[in-house]
């Protein structure tokens, strides 16, 4: 994938656009999850729509999967190229003196997110596919909320879920604002845009964590 896009700036822009696309998706996902804590019916309705609408299923979903794969494969390609650009390492390198920890460790926050996505696919997506396209089980528009609650019964699962979102927050803390610079946006509005991006990177992952905790507690009551 790195070979397809030859220039460093084209790769940078591709990385930013795929990242921004994922940010947009994250917001949409958050909105639906958010409904689950105050209305099982709304959550069921939205999930039923997302799970059965052909545009979502056969157009948006493949685009999303491509976007995720593109982003992390490109992330690995860039990481390898960048490591290679300094063959002999410094005996002493003070990275912390001039750049933030999160900005220097995007690959590690990314790897944690990738591990989480693996678990998430196994947890939600694989059962969905089996349910719909392998077992051809009849669609029950009220099944989503109980299925969701079931996933947050285990405190270990809920804890891992929360921890992953801490890493997502770290990834976005640098990544979201950084993507503006990558697409060439750096002007008098940048200070405001950066503040918005930093707020987003905390609020949305924290929101996901709160939802998980609420669902966990709801179930145990």
């Amino acid at each position, binding site marked *: 994938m790195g070979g397809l896009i*030859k*220039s*460093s*700036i*084209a*790769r*940078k*822009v591709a990385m930013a656009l795929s990242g921004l696309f994922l940010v947009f998706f994250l917001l949409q996902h958050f909105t639906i999850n958010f409904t689950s804590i105050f209305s099982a019916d709304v959550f069921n309705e939205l999930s039923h729509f997302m799970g059965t609408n052909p545009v979502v299923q056969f157009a948006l979903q493949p685009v999303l999967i491509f976007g995720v794969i593109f982003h992390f494969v490109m992330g690995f390609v*860039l990481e390898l*190229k*960048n490591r*290679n*650009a*300094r*063959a*002999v*390492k*410094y*005996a*002493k*390198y*003070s*990275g912390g*003196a*001039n*750049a*933030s920890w999160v*900005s*220097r460790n*995007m690959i590690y926050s990314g790897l944690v997110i990738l591990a989480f996505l693996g678990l998430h696919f196994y947890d939600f997506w694989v059962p969905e596919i089996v349910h719909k396209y392998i077992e051809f089980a009849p669609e029950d528009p009220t099944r989503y909320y109980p299925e969701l609650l079931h996933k947050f019964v285990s405190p270990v699962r809920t804890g891992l879920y929360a921890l992953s979102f801490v890493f997502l927050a770290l990834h976005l803390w*640098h990544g979201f604002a*950084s993507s503006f*610079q*990558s*697409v*060439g*946006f*750096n002007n008098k509005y940048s200070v405001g845009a950066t503040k918005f991006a930093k707020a987003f990177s905390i609020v949305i992952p924290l929101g996901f964590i709160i939802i998980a905790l609420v669902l966990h507690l709801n179930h145990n009551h």
Partner: protein
Amino acid sequence: MNLTLKIWRQKDAKSQGKIVDYPISGIEDDMSFLEMLDVLNEELINKGEEPVVFDHDCREGICGTCSLQINGQPHGPDRLITVCQLHMRSFKDGDTIFIEPFRAKAFPVIKDLMIDRSAFDRIQQAGGYISVNTSGNTVDANAIPIEKEKADDAFAAATCIGCGACVAACKNASAMLFTSAKVSQFALLPQGQVEATNRVLAMVNQMDEEGFGNCTNTGACEIECPKGISLENIARMNREYLKASLKG
């Protein structure tokens, strides 16, 4: 003050180098860092050993020749200065100081602390110029009206001395700050418009061919640049590049 220097010694481009320890004493606060190395070299020569090779020329922060990674930071711990402007008062008695060359695959070591930065020259040659008619009817640059803000930004970009600290600081050994400064100083001015499309494509292409890494916006370059070249230049170069790519 008494210090322990840990200096990278490498016989030539092909040899493997290593860090060698040199205790040094009697260093004054007022000495510059390079004077301290001069003292060391004098001692080494008197003992019949090979002096440490390091690059320097103007010793007043304008030529961009000096280039040392000191305790893991290009041009040492202080901001907005080159190594030749660094003074020993920034260190204290008993310190251990690592002294290494700026490291990047595109900056091979020639000997000890001296590196080959001709990759920068080739990036510059790929497009860092403008067409000026010199056949007798040359227009005085000052006769062309330019907005103050743009003139200031172009001037600020042009203060890059090509030292390579941006590459040395970057965890990816990316040359985006240098290249973007060289692209910006022309992109902002009317004289630069003639070659604008080709310039940014050619310079970025050369930068990639030299084997520099990819920018991930850590911002280390801007912090370590002795001339305070701004990250805005990288954003501008990205815009110029996208514009030029669309034009073909």
